[in-house]
């Protein structure tokens, strides 16, 4: 995924012709929204991609072999993955900061 891009504006001539965004939303880390933290038990997980498909952020990414990894920088702790996992391989734990 592309990270935040920086645009240098020195004068009026450098201004773009239309409205552009200065950077992506990925600079806003939403980890602090979370009270409960989902943890994947890889012994139970048979990579099916269901948690990845239902993650609203997306904070669950798929590795090359199809197994999911949780990106804790963006996970809001909504718990949809825990509810939807057919093998109950994801559980919620209290967040410690």
């Amino acid at each position, binding site marked *: 995924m592309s990270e935040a891009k920086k645009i240098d504006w020195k004068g009026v001539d450098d201004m773009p012709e239309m409205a552009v965004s200065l950077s992506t939303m990925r600079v806003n880390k939403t980890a602090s929204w979370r009270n409960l933290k989902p943890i994947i038990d890889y012994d139970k997980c048979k990579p099916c991609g269901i948690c990845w498909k239902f993650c609203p952020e997306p904070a669950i990414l798929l590795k090359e072999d199809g197994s999911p990894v949780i990106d804790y920088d963006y996970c809001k702790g909504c*718990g949809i993955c*825990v509810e939807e996992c057919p093998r109950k391989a994801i559980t919620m734990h209290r967040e410690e900061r």
Partner: protein
Amino acid sequence: MPKLMEVVKNDNLFTSGHRACAGCPAPIILRQALMVAGPNTVVSINTGCMEVVSTIDPFTSWNVPYIHEAFENSAAAISGVESCYEAFKKKGKIKKDMNFIAIGGDGGTYDIGIQALSGAIERGHRFLYICYDNEAYMNTGIQRSSATPYGSHTTTSPAGSVIPGKKQKRKDLTEIIVAHNIPYAAQASPAYRNDFMKKVEKALACGGPSFINIISPCPLGWRFNPDESIEIARLAVQTKFWPIYEAENGKYKITHKPREEVDIEEFLKVQGRFAHLFKPENRHIIDEIRKDIKYKWDRLERLERLYSD
């Protein structure tokens, strides 16, 4: 239906970090739609939850060209974009094939944007309109809209001793759109993701205007725990509250028929907005909702049979 590992590559078109409430299924809908549509897509969104959470100035969640439009005219804007593209393509300035998607909430589609949508469909532009239907004006504080179901509590139809929630019945927008003689119109649910992605693929390939109305349970407005939102979207289909079907050139087909009967109370009792219906004096509203659902389902089945041969 595209292969899983093919669509994984398109997962970066709607990025994380957006400010949607935890458990909101609308970003899932956007992700799934964009995964099928791919990077050559132009998106236009009218004011609503998804515009507010995904484009907080100066940031954006979108890795595809994106236009924010006023509340009523996302369909009008995308029809302009499509006309411009067709003109450029004729002159040879653009070579690649592009998809056009307009997205609106139920307030911007059922109420405010219906004339722009109706006009764009009538003019026959090639675009897909996705309405994520969370059944009230959730972004501004849960006011009733014409998509709010009968008996639902909202801040402008509060349930109490005077009225038992919304007194009017909801409008059936998908039927209104089918009446435009549209090539493809469908109703979907995020819980049936393969069905939804297949519908997006079909809609983008139909070569004309297309419309998908998709239910989007709102944890805040419907009053349930954030982790249940997909489960509730599934219950809505299983209880036939939100039948998922498609109408291809007016030919109806129900794409998922629940195997066993699930009573509507299963869907109502998990939501705080319907909690008042379980009081003895409001029980008749549940009976009426049940009757309406049965009537609509029977009608759909009859329409499906009509076109089955």
